[in-house]
């Protein structure tokens, strides 16, 4: 499969191959972008066009005001603010705590470390949905429903995936980094804060972006834990675009979900490198 590009003997065949390859790639890419493109189109149509059958491929008049209306039908900015607060709280805390724990697993040793690391890796495969439901019951008992405390606690307790990411990074740094500091009598806390953390901007930002997008995208935890006023944009976009009679307003919902998704796409495009590097480090183990 990788052979064709280098063989100089069959130039015409290579050109045909190339053409086929580009066509296949363009078609597949089109299919992959299709659902999102259709969402944008749906957000620009009138309710009548969306109810009509057979389908209206393009809006007769582009309804730009749908995006403004989507802002007004629900308290879009309020929900966006809730999403932002929760995502910032969680991403900041979980990045710091995971870096802290990752440092321990990368640079220190103690009896029982191997077992703990095994549990950590194993817990990466633990289905989150299974633990979430009983956790929800416990949070309800503790009166933490409809507060942001659950995200603080989740943030403080670090995430195995990110711990692993930091562990891989810290394990790759040279030994001399801490040796001089130890001779000077610095504690490991100081070594972590003063020497290792300032070195790890690429991983810190990757971790922050990953955690931020998790929280921004999470539907089920805010759906269970937060009331309709304090909930996140994900929940609001999914379930509050209805008329007072209860019929869904699909064109405004489509417009709203575009506005909900685009910030994440932009963050990804800006932070692409770290994001992908992080994914492949942990994916490969």
């Amino acid at each position, binding site marked *: 499969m990788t052979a064709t590009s280098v063989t100089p003997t069959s130039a015409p065949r290579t050109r045909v191959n190339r053409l086929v390859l580009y066509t296949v790639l363009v078609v597949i890419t089109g299919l992959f972008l299709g659902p999102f493109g259709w969402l944008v189109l749906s957000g620009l*149509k009138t309710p009548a066009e969306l109810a009509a059958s057979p389908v209206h491929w393009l809006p007769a008049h582009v309804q730009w005001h749908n995006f403004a209306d989507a802002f007004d039908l629900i308290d879009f900015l309020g929900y966006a603010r809730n999403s932002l607060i929760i995502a910032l709280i969680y991403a900041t805390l979980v990045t710091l705590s995971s870096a*802290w724990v990752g440092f321990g697993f990368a640079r220190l040793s103690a009896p029982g470390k191997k*077992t*703990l690391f095994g549990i950590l890796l194993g817990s990466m495969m633990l289905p989150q949905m299974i633990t979430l439901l009983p956790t929800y*019951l416990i949070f309800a008992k503790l009166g933490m429903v409809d507060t942001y405390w659950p995200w603080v606690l989740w943030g403080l307790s670090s995430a195995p995936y990110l711990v692993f990411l930091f562990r891989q990074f810290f394990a790759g740094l040279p030994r001399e980094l801490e040796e001089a500091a130890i001779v000077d009598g610095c504690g490991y806390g100081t070594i*972590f804060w003063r020497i290792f953390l300032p070195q790890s901007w690429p991983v810190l930002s990757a971790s922050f972006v990953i955690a931020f997008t998790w929280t921004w*995208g999470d*539907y089920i935890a805010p759906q269970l834990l937060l009331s309709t006023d304090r909930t996140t944009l994900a929940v609001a*976009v999914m379930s509050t675009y209805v008329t007072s009679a209860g019929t869904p307003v699909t064109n405004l919902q489509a417009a709203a979900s575009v506005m909900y998704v685009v910030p994440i796409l932009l963050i990804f495009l800006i932070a692409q490198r770290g994001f992908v590097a992080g994914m492949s480090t942990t994916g490969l183990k």
Partner: protein
Amino acid sequence: MTVDQMSSVTRPSGSAQVAGRVWPRRRSSVAARRHRAFYMFASPWIAGFALLTVAPMSYALWLSFTTYDGISPNWHYVGLGNYRELFSDAQTWDSLGRTGLFAITSVPLSIVAGLVLAVLVNRPIRARGLFRTLLYLPAVVPPVGAGIAFKQLFDQNSGAANGVLNLFGIDALGWLADPYARYVLIMTVLWTAGNIMIISLAGLQDIPREVLEAARIDGASAWRSFRSITLPLLSPVLLFQTVTGVIASVQTIMPLLLAPDPTPAGITALPQSNYLYMMHVFAQYFAFGRYGYASALLWVLFVLILVATGLIFKSTSGVVFYNVDPEAKK
């Protein structure tokens, strides 16, 4: 099970303190300091794991032996009653079967799709960075966005899918209802194959060029060298993808996001073909408030996942090829 996990979490920290005290102070003060420091650094995760994973799971285990519903004050212990009911509940078996079918179809399909995409965008072509980005983009779209997009795409009246069918003179299908909803669900998984593409791509790029060169000089066809060199070297990545894929498909909430009423209470209105096991759990929790019974369902699922993961690792241990021992790195 949970008791074991708990003790294995707490025991090492205890033994470390003991070790620090027993050893001669001078010689090992540095080592003891390192041990204490390790537990200081690991403590957020240990505490979080104990309080936010082990404790809820233990709580669920306890609830699974009761009739607790969160409201009624006179709930009581029923022993294995919930588990007995679970085994005779037709919905449990049906939803479990659907979940298995969903995992068995969607996981291999998306891995093959991701692998094919990775091979395509690994070729030396123009704008391949752009192709990679665009193909990966859907994997970044949050599930809620994906759910709404697919609901629009497969809407009976205004969906593009039926629009295309109409061009070929085929009648509109009720994609989001039985029996087609399951295919839409699988398509939502395939849509995020860019995830697998990126990880496989990293694996492809780790394959030494010389090995593939040598194979070509020896006259191996492209397909042969893919099968005999690329695939074995990628097998750890593919195994990892299989395991995470199975776990993701067991806990997916996409059926809910594709439903007309996407709140946990609306679960009972789900099309049967998307009523997966996790949805059954949600229905018992939130539509019927049967926390005890739902907890029993959760625990059965948990054990099944452990068994399935174990089986996947066991059955592939002879097939998966590790180039480097992952533990040797440190």
